[in-house]
């Protein structure tokens, strides 16, 4: 049997506000939990990938002696990309068991890694001088164009947050669990018109880790394997102004299309969907760029309850970056929820998840990674 599977998956013991842990320790806390989940220790890991931190720092901290290292860092979807690279490495025989970690002290900012963009970069020269202040003023800029071209209403955009809160209400680990209405969203503080506070992601602390190995070996681990059926990745732009189109992500289309082709699935095969939601327009772009909705129809699709609890395409069932948690590089938490749903252990469990698709974004529409998971080995 060929193929690769997830055999360990865990988040940090705590999520939310964790001022007593450095960013490096958040990586380690998640990794130790993933080791316990898989019934292994650092000695069993021979491949390592991370983003945010240099892999050398985290690997040494954890006591790893990897024969394969991947430091691909393309933003919050880096972990989807790591999964894809791990599949290739395992299939090529470069290593047998890969650990992927994420840790981010996004809220408390304890032992924070990373560096400010250079004033000589494209961002420094062609965006910073015009008053951008992080993702809420960059990731958001395309949406008015989408609203005019496709008739998306302010109410439909707000509904994305309403629906995700419905999922979060079922999740004890979610940061925000009280149900909200469209009016609540539209009456929340304006952050960057047309985005209100409740249409923007949380800022929290946390981490997560995955353990990946061959499907052959996966049978020997305590948890039911979650098989990787297909993956895709792409990059598009370091600055929002240079998206090919303001109403569609080329990176989403490339990564999502490749992952679905490799998995050999059609849209109707997907039982559960995760679309990285740093802001409320992301699920709208994702549903269309993945092909679940025709262009311009995702706002109505969400409005009608299709992605909500009881809907035919359960989406962002942990509550998403809008309500569950968002440390900065949220992709790891989207992957964790996909794994929980396929295992059948999610707090807001969807019935009979055989196929789950997880789409990540990196930077501000800068890059994408996509993973299709299956409960069974790929046929």
């Amino acid at each position, binding site marked *: 049997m060929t193929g690769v599977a997830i055999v360990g998956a865990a988040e940090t013991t705590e999520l939310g506000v964790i001022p007593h842990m450095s960013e490096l320790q958040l990586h380690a806390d998640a990794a130790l939990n993933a080791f316990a989940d898989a019934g292994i220790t650092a000695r069993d890991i021979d491949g390592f990938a991370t983003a945010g931190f240099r892999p050398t720092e985290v690997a040494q901290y954890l006591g790893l002696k990897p024969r394969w290292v991947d430091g691909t860092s393309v933003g919050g979807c880096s972990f989807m990309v790591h999964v894809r690279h791990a599949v290739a490495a395992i299939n090529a025989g470069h290593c047998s068991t890969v650990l992927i970690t994420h840790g981010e002290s996004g809220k408390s900012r304890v032992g924070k890694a990373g560096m400010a963009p*250079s*004033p*000589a970069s*494209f961002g*420094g*020269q*062609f*965006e*910073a*001088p*015009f*008053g*951008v*202040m992080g993702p*809420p*003023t*960059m990731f*958001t*800029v*395309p*949406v*008015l*164009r989408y609203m*005019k071209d496709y008739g998306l209403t302010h109410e439909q955009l707000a509904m994305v947050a309403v629906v995700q809160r419905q999922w979060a209400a079922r999740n004890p680990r979610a940061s925000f669990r009280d149900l909200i209405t469209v009016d609540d969203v539209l009456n929340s*503080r*304006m*952050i*960057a*018109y*047309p*985005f209100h506070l409740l249409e923007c992601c949380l800022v929290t602390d946390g981490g997560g880790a995955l353990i990946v190995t061959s499907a052959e070996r996966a049978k020997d681990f305590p948890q039911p394997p979650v098989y990787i059926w297909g993956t895709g990745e792409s990059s598009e732009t370091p*600055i*929002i*102004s*240079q998206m090919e189109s*303001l109403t569609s992500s080329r990176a989403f289309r490339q990564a999502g299309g490749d992952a679905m082709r490799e998995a050999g699935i059609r849209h109707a095969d997907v039982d559960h969907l995760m679309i990285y939601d740093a802001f409320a327009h992301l699920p709208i772009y994702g549903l269309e760029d993945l092909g679940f909705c025709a262009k311009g129809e995702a706002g109505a699709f969400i409005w009608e309850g299709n992605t909500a609890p009881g809907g035919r395409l359960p989406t962002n069932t942990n509550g998403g970056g809008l309500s569950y948690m968002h440390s900065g590089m949220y992709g790891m938490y989207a992957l964790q929820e996909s794994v929980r749903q396929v295992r059948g252990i999610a707090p807001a469990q969807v019935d009979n998840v055989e196929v789950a698709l997880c789409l990540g974004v990196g930077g501000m529409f800068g890059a994408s990674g996509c993973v299709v998971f299956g409960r069974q080995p790929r046929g």
Partner: protein
Amino acid sequence: MAQRPLPRPTPETDHFWAGTRDGELRLQKCHACSHVYFPPRPFCPECSSRDVHVFRASGRGTLESYVINHRPHPAWTAPYAIALVKLAEGPRMMSNIVDCPQTPEALVLDMPLEVVFDKQTDEITLPLFRPAGGAP
């Protein structure tokens, strides 16, 4: 009010910032495939040709999209708009819209714009845009 974050030109972008100092908006065009592009670089991102040249753009464009930032920024008085301008020659660039109320009512998508040059320091002049034909 604090100084805006200012760009640090590189050898590849120097002509653009020299242009704004001289009151010109400069773009680049590929001889091989005629592609007009921005931000600056000494080759064509469409066909990889190094046979490209710098030219003076019209300075005209339209308002393609924007947000109005409401959070405090040390160098701005909020709320202020961060805009994407579709230049007449094709490329898109980020800028600010001046001589115009920073409101959804006044900032109408697809409105015609024209460049104005805002000197920040002896080295750096920023290209900003205003409604074409002056304030509404």
